[in-house]
């Protein structure tokens, strides 16, 4: 393939000429790889924080009822489904937390800690205390770390939970930090204590279920809804809006990638056109000695494509450095807004593969027009050009 020999010689003869298109594409590759890494990490964090902080599957009361009464029976039915790893009846409600002069609205969750911990792994989120204490200390609570800080609550201090005239004095048994907005309102209570506070008797609001496979939830949910009159929802059903939002965000990110593609492509086109006008006479000579139009296209396409691998390699290297910097200097973001507490980046091998494909695609697309233009030159005019 003499075309590749000529293209390679052109490139090596003018390294400065190719430096800018290589840099332009490398920067584009870096931005895209880093963006993809950030988006992927954000998506993963959102999914994992959603999954970590809520059950994979939730069984809710029958139509027209506010609570599940026969929750112990229903729990044993749920245990009968294959792949079920944890089942935890939960009573949810709203209350006011009062400590000295501070009052805050809170979300309470009444649970049996021995059942809830296998469901959500609460203990691992505690920054202080022991989740299992709730099993033995009826007047204790696990309090959201931000809530405790807002109330200026210290370990060992008593605080009050108040709801519809019922007031209970509780002692913090631990502080929890999930990294989400729940940290400023969450209070875990022993189930019996929560039932006393709610005043609805021996009932729960929902039964949380964990399955061995994250994506088995929808199948079990539809089985439960069909076999019983209880409403079962998987985390995917509950987070539909969030997942749709992430998909919309992904769509706009792709548009952004397309813009970067076009802008970096113009850089390459510009250089290729300059190269071709500089080599007009040479193109004429090649035609005179027998190179056909296809060969001229191949020469300049090869010239453009040769720029792909170094651009991709440099871009990937820059993206890797950017990722390391982002990891080394954590950037905090408001968890209430972004549902994640810090910016993180996840550069998987697929991202690098996409980045390499991107660089090659840019160079391929950008080389087409200049190469075609070169091949349409009139050899007589090309040779006579100054």
């Amino acid at each position, binding site marked *: 393939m*003499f075309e590749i*020999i*000529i293209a390679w*010689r*052109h490139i*090596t*003869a003018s390294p400065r000429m190719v430096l800018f298109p290589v840099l332009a594409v490398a920067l584009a590759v870096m931005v895209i790889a880093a963006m993809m890494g950030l988006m992927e990490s954000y998506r993963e964090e959102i999914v994992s924080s959603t999954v970590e902080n809520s059950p994979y599957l939730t069984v809710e009361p029958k139509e027209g009822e506010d609570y599940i009464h026969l929750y112990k029976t229903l729990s044993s039915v749920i245990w009968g489904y294959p792949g079920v790893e944890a089942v935890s009846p939960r009573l949810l409600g709203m209350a006011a937390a009062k400590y000295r002069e501070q009052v805050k609205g809170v979300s309470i969750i009444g649970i049996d800690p021995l059942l809830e911990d296998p469901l959500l792994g609460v203990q691992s989120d505690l920054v202080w205390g022991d989740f299992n204490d709730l099993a033995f200390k009826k007047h204790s609570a696990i309090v959201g770390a931000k809530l405790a800080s807002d109330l200026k609550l210290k370990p060992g201090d008593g605080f009050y939970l108040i709801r519809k005239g019922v007031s209970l004095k509780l002692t913090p048994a631990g502080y929890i930090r999930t990294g989400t907005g729940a940290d400023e309102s969450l209070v875990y209570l022993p189930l019996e204590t929560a039932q006393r506070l709610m005043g609805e008797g021996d009932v729960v609001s929902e039964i949380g279920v964990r399955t061995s496979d994250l994506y088995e939830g929808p199948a079990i949910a539809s089985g439960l809804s069909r076999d019983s009159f209880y409403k079962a929802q998987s985390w995917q059903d509950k987070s539909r809006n969030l997942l749709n939002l992430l998909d919309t965000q992904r769509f706009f990110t792709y548009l952004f990638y397309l813009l970067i593609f076009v802008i970096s492509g113009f850089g390459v086109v510009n250089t290729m056109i300059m190269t071709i006008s500089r080599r007009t*006479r*040479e193109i004429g*000579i*090649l*035609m*005179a*000695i*027998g*190179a*056909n*139009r*296809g*060969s001229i296209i191949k020469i300049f396409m090869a010239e453009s494509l040769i720029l792909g691998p170094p651009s991709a390699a440099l871009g990937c290297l820059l993206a890797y450095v950017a990722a390391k910097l982002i990891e080394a200097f954590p950037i905090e973001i408001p968890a209430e807004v972004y549902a994640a507490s810090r910016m993180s980046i996840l550069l998987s091998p697929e991202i690098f593969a996409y980045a390499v494909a991107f660089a090659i695609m840019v160079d391929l697309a950008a080389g087409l027009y200049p190469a075609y233009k070169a091949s349409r030159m*009139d*050899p*007589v005019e090309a*040779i006579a050009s100054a």
Partner: protein
Amino acid sequence: MNIIVAKKLRKVFGNGVELLALDDVNLTILEGEFLSITGPSGSGKSTLLNMLGLLDKPSGGEIWLKGREVSQSSSLERSQLRNKELGFIFQYHHLLPEFTALENVMIPQLIAGADKKAARHRSEELLREMGLVERLNHKPSELSGGQSQRVAVARALANRPSIVIGDEPTGNLDTKSSEMVYELLRKLNREIKQTFILVTHDMNMAQKTDRILRLVDGRIVSEMRRENGGFVECL
């Protein structure tokens, strides 16, 4: 044997205001001929050469190359004919600047699909004949004008073409180098019966060829053929 026959060859340039560059030119060139085309600037010499060299298409008429009508051949076919049947030598050597003398001679062979090793061998042989054996790996910028033009001659001969076309091949050389290039072409003409068609302003050079065509305003106005050591008018 006729190697090139041009019949009523016409070339009109321009849109709107038209310029008749070639006006019904009839020409027959025999195999092994050493022919020159002369004439004042703008007389149509280079245009005729571009037509015969299949670099440009005529507006009318026919060109027969080795018994085949080629004036309206496809772009691909013309490329193949230029590569295999024709060799070009330009006024400025027009060597590819990034390639060595050896590589410049190899390229037409590689275009023709020759094996790299065979192309290298043939190129070394040609450059040796041109007296450039010590300049094989020099780039055009490291060669003198005469040396570059000899590399261009080697390149033109690389694929053993039927015809070598030269557009003022010595026009940019000093007298000594011109003489050296002329002697080289003449030697090839005598030894391997290579057909040469040269366009030249230089009457001294033209008078060393076997036939001189004079073009004025796109028409052949005179034709002189070498006979018994002199030239006789035959048009």
